[in-house]
């Protein structure tokens, strides 16, 4: 049903699909409507009563989230009656809400703060004390619950019943003693989405807890490289580091959500143990080395390259273009499958973010990308070779990678190009070279659907190069 209808919203003509949600139609057209319980990815609850509108011919205001678009509707939400209704509703929401803003992580992106400044600004009429509920509850899966701050919009309970279908959260008790809580701790793999959809500070992230204030952060809209799904995400960061990953709505891939594993992908980028500059292995201890010295050392020797699947299409293309005509051997290290192939929502077992891009580039250049090709190269390593290993950005299974490292021990010089932390097993390498992480480079990757997903460059933390032909440079020397 894609029949378009015309609605008059505050005297302005907007177009919407007939029978679609009135609130969503207004939001899509850039109209400002206060709402807490409505979320495009969840069912309609109609409990917060903030999105009230008036329609011509209808005697009373009604919530827009529970109305559908019909032809010729004349709707307003800027009348004094609606403003009074929203303010009164907001007063009720804030009756038992504690004054926690200085200690609350949500401050700065809180629905209550925003709407109080916009629609409220009243003096409290309450003479009674606020109802006290339990604070600082760890309900598992990196989620912290503060029952006092909750306004009972029921987004979180709907999320656990509709999206993950695990039903951990529920609203207990009645009246002003009503609160959300868990029967047993959260057990689903999408629990961090609860933090995102909570319009107030009732559910906050334990990982992000008290690390930064949100107004110090800038967001970079990029793509998750945690698995082959390639969810659209934004990473919050400032000059001190990266702090969190949140999903961005993308209809074609991830919708509104992302998995908890994907929330961890930022960690190596600004980690204090991340490799900052070219390093040399001195009896197991890595000390800074001069990159030009390494260039001198490897000059004229046969290069064997093991690429990872977390590079961008542009990096692969550049690499293969620059090694054309050289005798270098190239193979592809693919990460092993972790868990189920597909968990039914978003998460996929194949953790190779850009396997399709890599395969395409290998085939175009005439190299073998299969694991047999990798084995063949590993078996053929002689003591005169120089082996380069591009370390995968996220190693879910370090043991699997370590078996690869054992096989390259025969080579005379072993060089790692790593975008992440220096692991203890990296002692097998003679030299370590820092390369940009996914957050520091622009480019494209191809996800499991074959869709091209964009990586965006945010702030840079290491002294890594911005040159995407960096990988190819090591073959040319």
């Amino acid at each position, binding site marked *: 049903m894609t029949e378009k209808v015309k609605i008059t919203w505050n005297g302005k003509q907007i177009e919407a699909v007939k029978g679609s949600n009135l609130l969503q139609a207004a939001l899509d057209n850039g109209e400002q409507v206060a709402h807490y319980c409505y979320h495009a990815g969840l069912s309609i609850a109609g409990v917060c009563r903030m999105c009230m509108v008036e329609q011509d011919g209808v005697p009373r205001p009604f919530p827009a989230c529970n109305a559908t678009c019909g032809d010729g509707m004349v709707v307003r939400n800027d009348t004094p009656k609606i403003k009074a209704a929203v303010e009164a509703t907001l007063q009720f929401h804030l009756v038992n809400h504690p*004054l926690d803003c200085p200690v609350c992580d949500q401050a700065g992106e809180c629905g209550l703060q925003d709407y109080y400044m916009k629609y409220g600004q009243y003096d*409290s009429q309450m003479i009674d004390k*606020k109802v006290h509920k339990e604070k600082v509850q760890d309900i598992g899966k990196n989620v912290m619950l503060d029952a006092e701050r909750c306004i009972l919009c029921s987004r979180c309970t709907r999320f656990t019943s509709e999206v993950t279908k695990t039903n951990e959260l529920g609203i207990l008790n009645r009246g002003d003693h009503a609160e959300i809580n868990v029967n047993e701790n959260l057990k689903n793999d999408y629990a961090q989405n609860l933090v995102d959809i909570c319009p107030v500070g009732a559910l906050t992230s334990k990982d992000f*807890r008290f690390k930064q*204030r949100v107004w110090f952060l800038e967001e970079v809209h990029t793509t998750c490289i945690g698995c082959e799904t390639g969810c659209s995400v934004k990473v919050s960061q400032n000059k001190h580091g990266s702090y969190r990953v949140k999903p961005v709505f993308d209809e074609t891939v991830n919708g509104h959500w992302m998995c908890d594993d994907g929330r961890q992908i930022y960690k190596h980028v600004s980690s204090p143990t991340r490799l900052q500059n070219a390093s040399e292995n001195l009896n197991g201890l890595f000390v800074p080395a001069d990159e030009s010295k390494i260039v001198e050392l490897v000059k004229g020797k046969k290069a064997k390259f093991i690429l990872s699947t977390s590079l961008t299409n542009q990096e692969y293309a550049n690499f293969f273009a620059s090694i054309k005509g050289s005798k270098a051997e190239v193979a592809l290290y693919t990460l092993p499958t972790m868990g189920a192939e597909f968990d039914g929502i978003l998460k996929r077992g194949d953790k190779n973010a850009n396997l399709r891009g890599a395969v395409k580039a290998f085939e175009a250049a005439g190299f073998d990308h299969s694991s047999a090709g990798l084995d063949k190269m590993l078996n053929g390593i002689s003591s005169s070779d120089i082996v380069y290993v591009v370390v995968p950005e996220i190693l879910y299974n370090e043991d699997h990678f370590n078996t690869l490292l054992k096989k390259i021990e025969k080579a005379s010089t072993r060089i790692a190009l790593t975008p992440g932390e220096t692991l203890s097993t990296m002692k097998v390498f003679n030299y370590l070279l820092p390369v940009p992480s996914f957050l520091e480079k622009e480019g494209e990757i191809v996800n499991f659907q074959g869709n091209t997903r964009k990586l965006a460059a945010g702030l840079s933390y290491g002294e890594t190069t911005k040159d995407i032909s960096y990988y190819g440079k090591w073959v040319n020397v």
Partner: protein
Amino acid sequence: MILKADLYKAHGFFKGTYLGLKLTIITMVKNLFGVEKRMTLNYPEEKYFYSDRFKGKHVLTVKEDGTLRCTSCMLCSTYCPAQCIHIVAADDSDKEVEKAPVSFEIEMLRCVFCGFCEEACPVDAIRLTNEYEMAGHAEQEWVADHHELAFRKSLNGGRGIQSTVDDKDRLKLRL
């Protein structure tokens, strides 16, 4: 140097000199015999007293139990025009407190003593005092940590200054 040649021409050398130094000599005589109060102090033996509104060295107030009043909401460091306040927040074991600073540092050399931090603070945790003597040598001395800001000797002998709004009062009222 401006020599008023006219004075010598009109009055001769001695009278001209006297006329030139007239005000200085009168003030000196007045000060010698205590007719007029001197404007200068014999610092550092004598000290000037600034009013409590003077914006001098910062102080972090403490609660009754002697811990920092600061909840590390970061409003002061957000508001600070010199960006000289650095706070690291962490979980507090007390659920009623929830968030407390593990480190609170002010770069004294960067600070412009505008008092915005005092204004921004929602809990009366930071104040500017009338302490104006801040001399030191190495640059490192100029980063004041929370031990110095809250518990230096000049503040009740190291016990700190009590905050006017305490958590207990706030929780009692439940407003």
